[in-house]
């Protein structure tokens, strides 16, 4: 058991609740999708690459981003769908960079598969662009050391975990997720911070993510 370190600054848990805003923009072909990906607000790109994390907190057959799903299921372009699906979101620190990677992937594909441009979605199966509007609220949960942090993690909402892991890093453009930042800077535990920021949260359900962070932190406490 290692000695509990009192944090220089406590960790104040926030939560993030979101509302989906419709844009009325829709694509029926790959070319239209590409053009709109370039021009829609960053909140749309964020929505379509992160929606699945909150809507499917259990295993589902849908691929984890809307662009990939539509390209595969509606246009039947499985190869492009796989390329979009496997974009490593962790490698991009801003929505701008992620957007660029997505449209470059589609442009590249269209260069050597020009017939893909000729495919149309059937009526009712168009791609609808949606924006994610986030409301960030404080919760009453505050941790002053690692033990309290773990206890709160066990009962906080998945929305709160989601906010501190995904939204803080990519949407608010912080250098790492909030948990790792606090553990490194307020508890002085660089190793634990690195372990939490080192795994890919996009390949897990949020409940699994919660359990993984709790396990890593608990192992650290017992030395």
């Amino acid at each position, binding site marked *: 058991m290692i000695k509990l370190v009192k944090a220089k600054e406590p960790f104040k848990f926030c939560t993030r609740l979101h509302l989906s805003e419709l844009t009325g923009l829709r694509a029926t072909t790959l070319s239209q999708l590409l053009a709109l990906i370039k021009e829609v607000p960053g909140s749309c790109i964020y929505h379509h690459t992160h929606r699945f994390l909150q809507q499917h907190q*259990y295993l589902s057959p849908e691929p984890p981003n809307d662009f990939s799903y539509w390209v595969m299921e509606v246009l039947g372009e499985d190869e492009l769908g796989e390329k979009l699906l496997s974009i490593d979101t962790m490698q991009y620190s801003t929505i701008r960079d992620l957007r660029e990677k997505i449209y470059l992937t589609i442009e590249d594909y269209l260069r050597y598969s020009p017939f893909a441009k000729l495919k149309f979605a059937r009526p*009712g199966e168009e791609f609808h662009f949606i924006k994610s509007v986030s409301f960030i*609220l404080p919760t009453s949960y505050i941790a002053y050391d690692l033990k309290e942090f773990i206890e709160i993690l066990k009962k906080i*909402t998945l929305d709160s975990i989601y906010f501190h892991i995904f939204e803080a890093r990519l949407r608010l453009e912080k250098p790492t997720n909030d948990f790792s930042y606090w553990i490194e800077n307020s508890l002085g535990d660089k190793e634990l911070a690195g372990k939490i920021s080192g795994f890919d949260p996009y390949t897990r359900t949020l409940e699994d993510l919660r359990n993984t962070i709790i396990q890593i932190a608990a192992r650290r406490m017992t030395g």
Partner: protein
Amino acid sequence: MAKIEEYIPLVGQAVIDDLKLLGERLKGRVVQHINSTPVGGGVAEILNRMVPLLKELGVDTKWDVIKGGEQFFEVTKKFHNALHGRTEEVTQRDFEIFMETSQQNIENIDTYGDIVFIHDPQPIALIKKKAVNKWLWRCHVDVSEPNEKVWGFLMDFITKYDSAVFSAPAFSRKLPIRQFLIPPSIDPLSDKNRELPEETINSVLRKYDIEKDKPILIQISRFDRLKDPLGVIDAYLQVKKYIDCQLVLAGGTAEDDPEGFKVLSEVQEKAKNDRDIHILLLPQNDIEVNALQRAADIIVQKSLKEGFGLTVAEALWKAKPVVASNVGGIPLQIKHKYSGLLCYSVEGASFAIKQLLSSPEYAKKLGANGREHIKNNFLITRHLRDYMLLFLSLYYPEDIVRLC
């Protein structure tokens, strides 16, 4: 009626804590809902549950209903059908009737809310009373392919609202105002959805002379052409050639739907020679609807158009295998072959029903997946959260709102 704390065992303490946090942010503001009927149909059903829960969360919520005579509701039913894309002869006189009644409501209804929340087209013209308060228009209708004449008429009103709300992405189009996606929900603790003792289910079956000696197919819906009850009978007849089964068509009619009894009599006429078809008129008996859904082997929703299709969510919540049309908000609830089967025609529906009747394990799996999907996305607690965020959005135009 269930209190907010009673939802904790279903959704967890933290979800309820979030709702309370949002309620605190809305203290001091009055939210006034206005629609056209206090009973019947999905809108009244949701408001009946939503209003007391919002109050309990600290949001001062009121609910008012406009008045309208037979002529007015005949016109708004035409509007409803036309917005769903059905061919309707909407005349200049119809628009005049709509405006005459609307004018009376404008004169008689006090729009005192800080936020006035108008549901569907019937009260839409009240926007003429907009002052410094905020106004929302909630469209519960599938307007993916509306009659442009009626939509154009309504657009003059819609664009004067602060924001609009739709149930599915396909219903949105470019608008000069903000528009939000908020699917409706079901209340897991209401009489229509709560767990029932086996004895209650059996007594309802006895009451309507339904025996459990052969598989039961059920469609629960208002008697409305857009729900295609005649198509359901056709699908059942095709199934029955191969698998002996029975069909229950059950539902009520709404005060603002004058066409309902005509459709009911057509359905009764078509079913009159088949003792295995049970046509039940159930005006507002939620426990009986719940019991019938729980007694069903397969639940059908073969709508031609659907605003959302709450009966699908109700069926899935009860872990029932569902065969439903790929229209409106139904594909948001059913992922084909994962949480139910989607169809496009009578033949497709009958094929899907036969498939499920012949593969009970597969049917069971679809139902279990469906319940999980509803639990995560379509319960009233999610709906309460979305509505409170919607109210807050009226005061914060940005995409990232920091309330810390």
